[in-house]
């Protein structure tokens, strides 16, 4: 029972630990924290837990002239806005545990690419980053890790994400009370610690200084949160269903809503970094009015049986359909500075699961969209081809596009700039 978190509790818990967004009409003083001259300002990473059937995700041919594979067909209208990359992975562990490594390159949870980017651009928005999933992720999977290796929790209820983005006045008053209270208790304990320090030996003083400098650091963060709170939360006319569709059988419905809210989060500049873990359990989906013959997880272990693969692909296509809608939404919106939201947002789409049938995490399905990059190609870097590259190479390129001066990540040392310029 102790693990149950209701909506209200969640709201409060979250409200106090995250920084807060801005509106088109407001120019925050924090806005010009600058991220170089690049036009790319946002990062979205979307991973599908049970993966895709690789042969229906990757095209046969390299370059521009490829035929769109079955699973990616919903993206037909966006061909010039994304690139497919095959042959990339971290050379890491197999199985579902490999998810930890998807964005971090490491199975033990070192900092993930989204958090590296959030450290760079996060201050520009109310929330440095937001982590999203549908319901409760399978095996309590996590994909985002901070600098300290702490796994970031994900928001699984649409109503919680909605309330995070568009806080009500009473929520806001509560956050104000908490922040003010935190400010005053920090002042008080600073005094307490100083009094202890006065009587302490020089070695003890160093320990107390640890405390003092942490208090000062947290006070600074608090100031920032307070200044965001002075900026009104955006308003929206988007309406949620009366319940949260978070039971596994409604996951596709939940996915649709989460994409809508993510697009709104970017449009209102509530955050610049989003991760979305699209989960999968053993639910039996109904697609186009037809109930599938087995649960989703069962289908992912298709045993190379055509019928199963076909149904597995049906689910995969549903995911891609929703992703294509998301791209379309970003394409038709401008950000607060008048740039196309799609051109200023780099999107990584794919899976940390290579071949779900065998739990093999090589050749991870990977696609990059938006960001104002040159797109339209299928790049193949198959293992043993003499042209083999790592997924970390791609991440290096993405991070460098954000003006980050990083030249190695998870064993990767070469970027993949040639694919996008």
């Amino acid at each position, binding site marked *: 029972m102790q693990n149950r978190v209701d909506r209200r509790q969640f709201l409060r818990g979250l409200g106090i630990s995250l920084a807060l967004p801005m509106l088109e009409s407001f120019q925050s003083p924090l806005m010009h924290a600058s991220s170089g001259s690049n036009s790319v300002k946002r990062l979205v990473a979307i991973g599908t837990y049970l993966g895709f059937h690789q042969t229906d995700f990757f095209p046969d041919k390299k370059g521009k002239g490829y035929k769109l594979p079955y699973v990616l067909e919903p993206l037909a209208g966006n061909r010039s806005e994304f690139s497919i990359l095959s042959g990339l992975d971290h050379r890491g562990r197999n199985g579902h545990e490999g998810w930890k490594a998807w964005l971090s390159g490491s199975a033990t949870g070192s900092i993930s690419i989204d958090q590296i980017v959030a450290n760079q651009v996060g201050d520009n928005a109310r929330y440095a980053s937001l982590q999203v999933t549908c319901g409760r992720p399978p095996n309590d999977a996590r994909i985002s890790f901070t600098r300290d290796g702490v796994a970031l929790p994900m928001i699984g209820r649409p109503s919680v994400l909605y309330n995070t983005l568009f806080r009500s006045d009473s929520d806001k008053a509560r956050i104000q009370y908490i922040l003010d209270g935190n400010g005053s*208790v920090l002042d008080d304990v600073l005094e307490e610690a100083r009094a202890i320090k006065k009587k302490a030996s020089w070695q*003890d003083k160093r320990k107390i200084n640890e405390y003092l400098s942490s208090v000062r650091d947290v006070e600074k963060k608090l100031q920032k949160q307070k200044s965001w709170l002075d900026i009104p939360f955006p308003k929206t006319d988007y309406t949620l269903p009366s319940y*949260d569709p978070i039971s596994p059988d409604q996951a596709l419905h939940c996915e649709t809503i989460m994409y809508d809210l993510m697009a709104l989060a970017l449009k209102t500049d509530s955050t610049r970094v989003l991760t979305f873990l699209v989960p999968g359990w053993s639910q039996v989906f109904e697609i186009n009015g037809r109930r599938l013959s087995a649960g989703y997880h069962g289908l992912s272990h298709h045993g190379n049986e055509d019928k199963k693969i076909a149904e597995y692909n049906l689910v995969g296509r549903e995911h891609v359909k929703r992703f294509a809608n998301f791209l379309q939404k970003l394409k038709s919106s401008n950000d607060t500075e008048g740039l196309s939201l799609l051109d200023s947002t780099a999107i990584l789409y794919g899976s940390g699961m290579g071949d779900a049938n065998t739990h093999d995490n090589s050749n991870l399905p990977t696609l990059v969209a938006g960001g104002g990059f040159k797109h339209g190609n299928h790049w193949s870097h198959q293992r043993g081809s003499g042209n083999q590259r790592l997924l970390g190479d791609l991440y290096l390129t993405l991070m460098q596009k954000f003006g980050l001066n990083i030249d190695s990540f998870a064993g990767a040392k070469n970027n993949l700039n040639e694919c996008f310029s």
Partner: protein
Amino acid sequence: MRFLLWINITFFSCVLVADDFLPQSALSFFENHCFECHQGSEDSIEGNVNLEAKSIDWSKKESTVFWTRIYEVIHSNEMPPKEASSFPATAERLSMLTWLNKSLTNYAPPGGTLPRRLNRVEYENTIRNLFNYSDFKVPPSFPEDDTTNGFDNIASGLVLSPTLLSQYLDIATSIADEVLPEPVPLKSFDSRDFRIKPFQLKTNEGDGAALTNDTYRLVSSRNMASAAGWTSPFEVPVSGVYKIKVQARTFQTDKMFYDKRIKPFRLELYARQNGEQQYEPFGELRALGGFNVTTKEGLSKNYQLESKLFEGEVIGFRWADGPVYSDPGKRDISHSFIDDRLLNDSQFYAAAIKLDGGKRGSSQIEFYESIRELIKSGGLDLENPKLKSPPKVYGGGLFNGPHNWCKAYAYEEMHRFGPALDILNIEISGPDKIIPDQLTQSRLARSDLFLGRSPGAILDISFAENFLRDFLFKAFRKPVSENKIKEYLGIVEKHRLDNPDKRIEDSLHLAVRRAIISPHFLFRGLKSGFLDDWGLASRLSYFLNSSPPDAKLINFAKTGKLSDPIVLESETRRLLKKPQRNNLIKHFTGQWLGTRRLKDIMPDPRLLKFYNIHREAMIDETEMFFEEMITENHTLDKFIDPGFSYRNKNLNNIYGGNLSGTEMQRITFDKGGRSGGLLGLASIMMSTANGVDTHPVHRGVWLLENVLGSPTSPPPPGIPSIAPDTSGSTTMRERMIAHQQDTSCASCHKKIDPLGFVMENYDPVGRWREHYPVYTETASEPLKEEFYSQNGKQTRVGQKIDSSGLLPDGTVLKNVVDLKTYLLTNMNLFTECLVEKLLVYGTGRSLNFGDKRISMKIAKNSLNSNSGFQDLIVDIVLSESFLTR
């Protein structure tokens, strides 16, 4: 001062000498090699270190710190610097170090723990205790503690980072919200009817299924989340009392395999939060009640009950007394059903064997139909001897074992022919009455408990002062000054002034938040020197229980009696009498013996099938062994050769043996053999390997550090590790011999390697072996699924293991039994090591020269009196090291 006197007799060895004159050799060492930079007046000397001294005044605390530092920089070759004009000869340097070592060991006083932050475990326990909040857990985002000197409760390693402080701050708010919740007004909501058609009942897979739009068919199962029908998309809109009406009937045919039932079928209803855990057994869900559905043919009736439902819940339906289900603890029902099925329906079993589990990911229907197809087409091998002795394995994956074959088959059969329970319609109406939601209710109860408030009572300001006096005393684990209480009361008064219409509870909210981020709460040992009774109560309690002092300790501290050695001894024994396996045992063995590491090691499936139950049994064995060592006050040689252990049937595949039952049982065996003790525990062997292969160096280093108490320096940088040869053509030993021939490596490897070789008979999970395994498939390729289904079959017998070793003192060891004998004849090694470990863990510091002197004394005393392990812990608590911050 009876107390000091007593201590003096036992472990107070150090006489504080005011004038310890430096010998001529030291004086000339400093003059020749140091004075160039470290002589003269304060501002002209390097690093503010002046070495112009004739004598050392050991009665001054600074002397120890200063001369320890001098020892360390000379020892590590940091000083004199390489570029110094006159660099000392090796012999000169060594003699300097020997003198300093001896002086420090003789004269340095013990102590020197820095203010010690509560670590994660201690913090959790302290919060639970302080707020009567037994299920408190830190959030998953809470950072891990660093480990220093082998433990995570060492003051110098317990750094306070801004990340951690903001976690403390957030947790303080959520705890204050829990124990001092704001009043939540009841929601308003118009009562209405919700209709749920059977096809809207949702399930994950398998056992329940909508047949048509009109009927949902339930068969029995234990796993509610995946088996029962759940009412999503209906989610309770507001907490209240609702009427639930269900139209249901039973379904039985003449064709069914089972006997017809006359007794009504039991339909039970449960509630859970939407989107909660997927695989909860029904026993963990909230039961709403149920109905007896009549077996009268074809008769569908309406059944109704009234129940409290909470916001966000969904409702599940279960046929509780069907033929196939397995409650935890009642699993035999399902087992005997399966045994029956396999024995009496040989056609089914023969077909199942032929199908061999079917295709991966087969659905229940496919599986059923494949079996029927095979039975229909005939030609099954009904003479197969397997049919006579059906397996009794509890199945693993979906169709890997007979258990699941039977279940899937039986469910489908019941869907088609009965018996089953049909649900035709569901109507939920309400709420008739709106009630507070679960969270509000539980918080209110928690708040009453925490404040000692009777439900509904209204508090006034005089309550606040008394409350804060008690609360701060408990939070800071020591008496709190009146001024401090006034400070906190000031917070309450100010809040009341600003918010005259709020309650006292709301005003206490902020004061509570402040208290639990205060350094007085987060740190212990803020005062240096001898521990007072309060400091002692905390140190003892966190040492033995990772928790704040209990009422008895507090009473002794209040009356100033705790430092009385007689009281201290009896309190130590009291706390050890019923050791809390969760705390001292769990956390000390978890780190000293490495059982904490086990959760991160996944043994190679090519070696054996290994599941969590094996891991848990290994940890239990280690902890129960250690527990008996304490409670029975066994002599320390039993750590090496105990003649007993605790095991269950899950350990049969590690140790051999034929235990039955999952309860841990005490077993005994002859002493003098390889079984049991620190050199025989599977958990230790597993934690010193990596799950795939063993490495003599790792185990050798582990033994030196944790059993022989003679750690080696880390290898110089840039030395590659030796990887095992997976082809099996050379042994680790052959590859390591070359390594030992390099003199710079040999100095340490002569100590490490023989110990490691001796342990080579233990495989990566602690099984005994005579030969190395050779994996017939390499692990560098991704492990395919097929692989897992054939666990343990991908190895062949490789080279024979040579477990002999030659210790640096010339002792020849043939195997691990010889090493045990060696340790038993040299018990001082292990005893000294164990004392050091416990002292480090208990005091939270790396031992200084003074502490080492005391630690040696304790060990010597234990050896001489051949005392038990509990006595040893008492000696540690009574030692000057433990009693000094």
